């Protein structure tokens, strides 16, 4: 039967001084995983075998998701018809996935900030160059930066 492994199980394992054995179908909560790594409690997956291949095993879940990487694309310039379509079209063509967009037009000037998921982007440099190539002096300018710099500057 499927079991939910929580922080209490991790604490009990710590007190017993033995690794925590979990079945391949069991669900280990994020809080439990964090606590286990903090307390140094090892989680051992037992009975891996005939599990449903389409679902991730506990072992895979424990390995953690790959980090979700995003780029921040900002574009500023003179407003004109089709500018947004041009940008989103190019983002999509380069493999980016627009997750959020903030856009406004102030006295004829267009400014847009896109949060773009990079799961399907192979090479950051190609993505950046492809988008920044849309910049036209006197028309509008595109800047592509990895989300990390904003997190570093504005989040503790």
């Amino acid at each position, binding site marked *: 039967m499927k079991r939910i492994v929580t922080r209490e199980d991790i604490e009990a394992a710590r007190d017993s001084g033995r690794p925590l054995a979990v079945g391949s179908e069991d669900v280990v909560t994020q809080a439990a995983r964090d606590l286990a790594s903090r307390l140094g409690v090892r989680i051992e997956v037992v009975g891996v075998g005939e599990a449903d291949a389409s679902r991730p095993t506990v072992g895979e879940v424990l390995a953690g998701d790959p980090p979700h990487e995003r780029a*921040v694309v*900002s574009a500023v310039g003179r407003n004109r018809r089709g500018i947004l379509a041009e940008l989103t079209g190019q983002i999509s063509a380069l493999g980016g996935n627009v997750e*959020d967009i*903030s856009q406004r037009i102030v006295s004829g000037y267009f400014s847009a*900030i896109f*949060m773009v998921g990079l799961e399907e982007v192979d090479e*950051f*440099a190609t993505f*950046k160059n492809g988008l920044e190539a849309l910049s036209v002096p006197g028309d509008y300018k595109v*800047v*592509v*930066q*990895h*989300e*990390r*710099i*904003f*997190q*570093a*500057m*504005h989040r503790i």
Partner: protein
Amino acid sequence: MIRDEEVLETLRMVSLENLDIRCVTLGVSLLDCAATSVETVADNVYAKLCRVGADLVPTCQAIERELGIPIVNKRMSVTPIGVLAAACARDPNTDLTPIAVALDRAARQCGVDFLGGFSALVHKGFTPSDHALLNSMPKALAATERVCGSVSVASRQAGVNVDAVLRMGHVIKDLAAATADSDGIGCAKLVVFSNIPEDNPFMAGAIHGLGEAELVINVGVSGPGTVAAALQDLGPEADLLQVGETIKRVAFKITRVGALVAREAAQRMGVTCGIVDLSLAPTPAVGDSVAEILELIGVDAAGGPGSTMALSLLTDAVKKGGAMATAAVGGLSGAFIPVSEDSLMDKRAAEGKLTIEKLEAMTSVCSVGLDMVVVPGDTPATTLAGIIGDVMAIGVVNGKTTAVRIIPAPGKAAGDTVHFGGLLGSGCVMPVSTVSAERLFRRGGRVAPPTQALVN
């Protein structure tokens, strides 16, 4: 999720306020390159630096692209050559120029603009190889383009090695003469230190100290323009506590970027992540000036009364904001007030509002106080030694790093102008006191360390 105003603030800081990472410096231990012949050492040094430094510039360029922030200088620092050369320079007359040439070739090969470490640690005394290094210094720095040198002549624990100070007066004169055709530019690559830091990423004084790991990435941040813009927004009504708080907030953000770049670079190159140096480093670009910050704080002209207090406020606030933002602070971590590299500082010097004596006073509250100061070419070596000795005493007694980078421009007199170009800028020749220090230095010996050194 990142908010719009945060994105716009970052963009403004980079594109309008000259925010950049001033330098990413790869520290390299060369101790395994030691050998008994100068030629072998030179070969070993060249081979090792080309091997470990090959990835530095491409890695930094990739980080620049991804984060959208310029990394202005990519540099390397190495084990002080005076130490490395111990086995190959048992004779103090050994010429160590071939090692400097090898360093220069390696720097060019790796695409770094400066490489620091043609250096000696003589704050208490000389070894034969230290003598050899100082003897070779004028020729070596004149013959090379990218190699920087530094000499530690004082420390809190050792006091001031007055013989070394006088020696540096002569070395600086000889180096100026060896590069006379370009106004003594060689001296821009030589720094004299008290309490030399072992992990400083900034040139010309970077070395890779003996307590360091094999390979280390150290990062120097910058951002006078960003601080100036924040103070402009704050306006003249805010009191000085508010001024300090504003600077702290900006310093925090600048330093977070520095720490991010240090982590990324170290991780990608597979080397130790060292420190972030919290120094505001000006450039000759308009709007990238420490003097401008002092004037925004409220001094009418940098160098005027109140300048030392304003600078102490600035340095302190930068440290407090920066220290929160990174796990490891190091290097010099204090504002730089170079004259020729800071266009407004140079202007105030030309106007006679900023004097060498005031720069010396300001040394007590920043790191490199007498920096890129151009003086008349006929200044005697003993007078240069006197100026250096004064700055060293401030460092020893106050337990802090102080440094001198002074250029006696051959054939130039007070009021003339010299042009070095690039980051080194151009400088007016500042007048120097004509009172002699010769009798003082004829005594030689050492100034004993102060009682503050007796802390054990």
